[in-house]
């Protein structure tokens, strides 16, 4: 009995060693690929960073208010963020390639799916980035305009606009990523429609006096009445 166990063991050991020996080169190759991938990714990151620097990408995102947003979220600057993202995508991509080349079964499909998914992910990130930028910009613009025009509840207005835009952006992202498309679309449609209806009712019934006052003020301003209250600044 002991001899059987020993011989089975030694057979198993042999097979493991064999399998290992078979696998090891691939592992080593894999590691090499990973290392090369890291180098490539690093280069990509550096290159992208300098390109973005040249394009003054940080400046652009500052102007749009993204920098402020990023700072608040304790994230690094926009161009840094993009470069790092590119780094990871590149590295993972190279590793994936390596994995597929090594023929580790079952993973092939995942790899190709991953690569197919990447562009959509990119677009989605793109949409999020600029969407939030826009939300920030327009909500602030609305806030300032409302304050300067002495409209009631400027913050509410500003927030509403931000919410609407964010909502819109998120819907777009979901659609892009193909996650619960129909649900999201429907939800968005319902929310938007309801919101509009609500506003109409509010204005039509409850706020008709306010609306009238508002319109009067608008038209009156064009007639120059406001000048009586405030002397010309220039």
């Amino acid at each position, binding site marked *: 009995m002991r001899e059987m166990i020993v011989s089975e063991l030694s057979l198993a050991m042999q097979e493991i060693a064999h399998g290992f020996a078979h696998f090891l080169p691939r592992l080593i190759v894999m590691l090499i690929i990973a290392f090369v991938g890291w180098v490539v990714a690093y280069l990509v990151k550096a290159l992208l960073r300098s390109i973005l620097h040249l394009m003054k990408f940080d*400046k652009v995102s*500052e*102007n*749009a*208010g993204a*920098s*402020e947003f990023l*700072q*608040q979220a304790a994230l690094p600057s926009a161009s840094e963020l993009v470069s790092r993202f590119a780094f990871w995508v590149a590295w993972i991509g190279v590793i994936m390639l390596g994995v597929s080349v090594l023929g580790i079964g079952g993973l092939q499909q995942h790899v190709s799916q991953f690569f197919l998914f990447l562009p959509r992910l990119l677009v989605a990130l793109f949409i999020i980035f600029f969407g939030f930028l826009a939300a920030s*910009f327009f909500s*602030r*613009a609305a*806030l*300032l*305009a*409302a*304050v*300067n025009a*002495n409209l009631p509840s*400027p*913050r509410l207005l500003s927030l509403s606009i931000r919410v609407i835009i964010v909502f819109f952006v998120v819907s777009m992202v979901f659609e892009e990523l193909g996650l619960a498309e129909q649900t999201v679309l429907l939800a968005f449609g319902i929310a938007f429609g309801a919101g509009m209806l609500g506003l109409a009712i509010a204005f039509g019934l409850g706020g008709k006096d306010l609306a009238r006052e508002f319109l009067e003020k608008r038209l009156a*301003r*064009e007639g*120059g009445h*406001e*000048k*009586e*209250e*405030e*002397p*010309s*600044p*220039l």
Partner: protein
Amino acid sequence: MNVGEVDLLVGLPTHNNAETVGTVVQAIQTGILKNFTRERAVILNVDGGSKDTTCDVVTASSISDIRRAYNTHALRTLPAISVRYGSSPSSETALHTILAAADLVRAKACAVISPESVTIEPEWVSRLLHPIYREHYDYVAPLYRRPKFDGILVTNLIYPMTRAIYGQSVREPYPSEFGFSGDFGNQFLLSHNWRDEHGQFGTELEMFLNAAGSGLKITQSFLGTKGRAENRSDDLVAAMRRTVGVLFLSMDANFERWSADMSRHTGLAANPEYEIISDSSRVNRKRLKQMFSDGVSQLDSVLRSILSPSTVGSLHQIAALDEESFRYPADLWARTVYEFAASHHHSVMSRDHIVQALVPLYRGRALTFMVENRNSSAMEIENSIENLCGEFEQLRPYLLDAWNDGKRGSHA
């Protein structure tokens, strides 16, 4: 242009000014015929796509041998030419056209006059051109007789700031009428970046700043009562964009000039006349105070990105005051403006938004100015402005620090 070489050129930028331009052109002509009888002159109307008869009115008043001149006898031809520079108004392009024309005709002295100056007198032309043509100044800024609370944006922001930064006590650095020498006009024509980045307006301020920054001979000339056409709406935000926005941008461009120690002052002695024309105390104090306070509270997040925490704190403090005791002190105002300028320089957010954010704060300052001076004489108002200028000048190092520093807002 068949005008040939001239000694004097008067530019008239117009857009749908048919109602008033006739009077203005006549006054210019009379002024030239009376005070510069022998000089060769031309009136150049640069039009931004008027749909009315503005251009026709101008060209019809040309003094040539084809039609007889009216009362004033003209020794020589005085052409009035109209040129269309575009289909929509842009004071930058208008000024560009005027400068290019002045260069072509080698004009020695030039003036720009607003077609809306319904209160213009013939002497205005002389007062703008005489210092250039006969006394060899390079730039003449106007001075007006105004109601005492007219132009607070200028007296409380643009003037003190320009004076503190550039060392020029020019009361109207953003004039609709001014004079300049042909040489300076040409220099500005060549050195200025003629783009539309400044929006469509504000180049006049740029031009003044250029003159100030180049150390040219600048003087002020009293013209008369400032007039404007009746129906012009003066949107405060637009006005601030045109002036404050341009001023902040120019600080970027001229940093080397103003950051150096400007201990020299072009002591321009002219005192503007303040005629207490009408009782303009129909100011709605309550509304202004409310707009200020609302602005401070509603824009809190925005202001925190622009101003230092202490300034924001001070603003909240004064916003909390009631109407009677509300005061926006001069030093706080100066600090506010400087911090805005620095933030604008660092583009902490959209620059246009920065300018817009200043509007409610300006209202508060305007209110304080009007309340403090409601019974003041012209001399007292002058002193008040002088004090404000002093604050701005004292805080200059603070501005430089903020400018170079870069840290703004309330980030942790």
